[in-house]
């Protein structure tokens, strides 16, 4: 299944408060402004902008642990992370280097200690042109955990094991140019080398393996040539109060194919070319935020006769979000994916292989709230695939402790009727996670 699950917008402006002591409030005072006659502020000592340091150092310390909630009960991660965020900004230019130092003795995949350059780029701002060169997070589209036009790299292992939502996104090493012309915003992104998504591999996270007899796997990435470089274009403007965008993408499908060779019992994992044309619109209609996104995928198997490679498809997302009361907000999404050459796909599918339906339908619901002066933020996200009959549930409770410090406690649930579906394969990875972060 090619659902491009997506990104949560935890709208919670994590507006964490500070803690301290002050005088207890007494009787409401008479407004002192009433006693003042306004006078011209000739020299305002506080009116002078603060001198900013030339180099800003920020970041956070974080503990993020995840425990498999089903048998075998097992720690999926006990991760300690220090992020150092160095930046410098001038009116015309700037740079940012955001580096994570990670130690996780129970790591699901990879080494227990590693350094990860999350982002590192230079920026330049002209009158009508902005440039950003280097490793950077790029996010497109209007979906909430349903991605259609956002084909940029993601880390599904972090997502599945309860990392903060920003870790679903991985940086792209790219040159990004934004040009502003009247009401239009034009964005061009050049990515020299395809960077693949991070999917579960190995023993710790259960997932569907269509070739149980396979003894080895081989990853074949596209050669690093100019012809294989990725190019993404977006044109945006407001139309009738709606934020609208058109998208073009020429690059590599983040969802690879799997080819099994019985002679060598080897699985070859190979990403393929993908062209995408898309559009989105988002705006208010009488207090309800409406969103729509469309994407046509022109895959490498344009004839639709190779079942190992994704079939060309039309994809549509419709969504509505509304504040119910105070800050309690509900949103619903409907996703439709239409495989264009389903007949050829079925005809070419080997006997016994799981069969995808032509039209796939997904519904999601999200409820979120912000309580006790925005210091308690519960959210629940439900996703159900109507055809595959599988589901994903994420429930999280986030609370501020002190200024810049918060913790989150959450649960990820997966399930489904079949083992081969997107979320059905993760049955057994249900987990409870905990995050404590202190930002500075």
């Amino acid at each position: 299944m090619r659902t491009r699950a997506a990104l949560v917008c935890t709208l919670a402006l994590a507006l964490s408060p500070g803690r301290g002591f002050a005088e207890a409030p007494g009787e409401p005072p008479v407004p002192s402004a009433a006693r003042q006659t306004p006078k011209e502020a000739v020299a305002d000592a506080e009116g002078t902008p603060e001198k900013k340091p030339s180099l800003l150092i920020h970041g956070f310390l974080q503990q993020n642990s995840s425990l498999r909630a089903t048998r075998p009960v097992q720690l999926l991660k006990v991760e300690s992370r220090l992020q150092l965020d160095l930046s410098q900004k001038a009116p015309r230019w700037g740079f940012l280097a955001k580096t994570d130092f990670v130690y996780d003795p129970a790591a699901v995949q990879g080494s227990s200690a590693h350094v990860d350059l999350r982002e590192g780029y230079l920026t330049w701002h002209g009158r009508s042109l902005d440039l950003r060169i280097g490793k950077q997070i790029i996010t497109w589209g209007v979906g909430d955990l349903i991605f259609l036009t956002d084909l940029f790299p993601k880390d599904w292992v972090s997502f599945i094991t309860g990392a903060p939502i920003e870790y679903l996104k991985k940086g792209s090493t790219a040159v990004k140019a934004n040009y502003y012309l009247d009401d239009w915003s034009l964005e061009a992104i050049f990515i020299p080398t395809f960077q693949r998504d991070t999917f579960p591999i190995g023993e710790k996270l259960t997932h569907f393996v269509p070739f149980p007899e396979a003894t080895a796997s081989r990853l074949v990435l596209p050669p690093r040539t100019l012809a294989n470089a990725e190019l993404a274009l977006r044109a945006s403007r407001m139309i009738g109060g709606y934020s609208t965008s058109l998208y073009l993408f020429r690059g590599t499908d983040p969802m690879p194919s799997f080819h099994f060779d019985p002679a060598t019992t080897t699985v070859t994992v190979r990403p393929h070319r993908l062209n995408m044309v898309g559009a989105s619109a988002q705006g208010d209609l009488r207090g309800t935020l409406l969103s729509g996104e469309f994407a046509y995928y022109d895959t490498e198997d344009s004839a639709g006769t190779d079942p190992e490679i994704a079939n060309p498809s039309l994809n549509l997302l419709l969504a509505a979000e509304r504040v119910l009361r105070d800050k309690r907000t509900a949103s619903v999404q409907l996703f439709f994916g239409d495989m264009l050459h389903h007949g050829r796909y079925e005809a070419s599918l080997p006997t016994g292989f799981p069969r995808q339906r032509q039209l796939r339908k997904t519904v999601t619901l999200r409820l979120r709230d912000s309580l006790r002066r925005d210091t308690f933020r519960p959210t629940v996200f439900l996703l159900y695939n109507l055809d595959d009959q599988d589901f994903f549930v994420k429930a999280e409770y986030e609370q501020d402790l002190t200024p810049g410090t918060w913790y989150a406690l959450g649960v990820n649930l997966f399930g489904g009727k079949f083992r081969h579906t997107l979320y059905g394969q993760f049955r057994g990875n249900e987990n409870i996670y905990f995050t404590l972060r202190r930002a500075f």
Partner: protein
Amino acid sequence: MTKRAAIAIAVVIAAALTPSPSGAVELSGLEIMTRVEQREIGKDERSQVTLTLITKEGQRRERKLLLQRQGKADRKKVLIHFLSPADVRGVGFLVWRHPGKDDDRWLFLPALNMVRRIAAADKRSSFVGSDFVYEDVAGRDVGQDTHTLLRSEALGGQDCYVVKSVPKDNRSAEFSSKLSWVRKDNFVVIQERYADKRGEDLKLFTVDRLEVIQGIPTVRKMTMRNLQTGHRSEVTYDQVQYNLGLKDEVFTERYLARPPA
């Protein structure tokens, strides 16, 4: 020109042509509140805002943000970037107000480098956890309430109109009535007292510091107290500058996604 704008201008002109407050003819409640809404506050503004939330026990929580504004009343655009605390640094919030319809709102999350629209707010909901509600910040249309001039009285030595405002639609506000003390010399509201749906005291707003900056009477410090819980929120405005010539493009996604250092 919309009908609403025409009415507002007519009210202001009519008010300007009437004798001064010291004269024989007093302004009506609607005329006073229209002049409050339409008073000169500059074409645009930039200021650094400190919002301090203080519990009944005296515990304080503080956040700082950079605020940029263009226009006023129901044709206002506001761009906010949070400067602190550290976990929300760089988060941006853009609001376009429109006469007679819901605001357009955008949010920028720097960790995801993502700009997205967000649903129109419940205008009675708290603004970032403070005692101010969303419409205290974004503004409440004069036409949503019925305004009655109750009396004139001095407050802290300043001549003020005391105007009672009652929502025309009871569901449109968190209060059932509001008393405003409006200075006669500059039409700045220096105190408001809110009553809840039961008619009991709900909140008290006071202006604690007022200065003239670039010829514009400017609130430099104000407080909103919840009289029922004892919680209060203080707001101070520093580095206030008017008429900077902020262009329309500042209030777009381009600048929303470019937080200050």
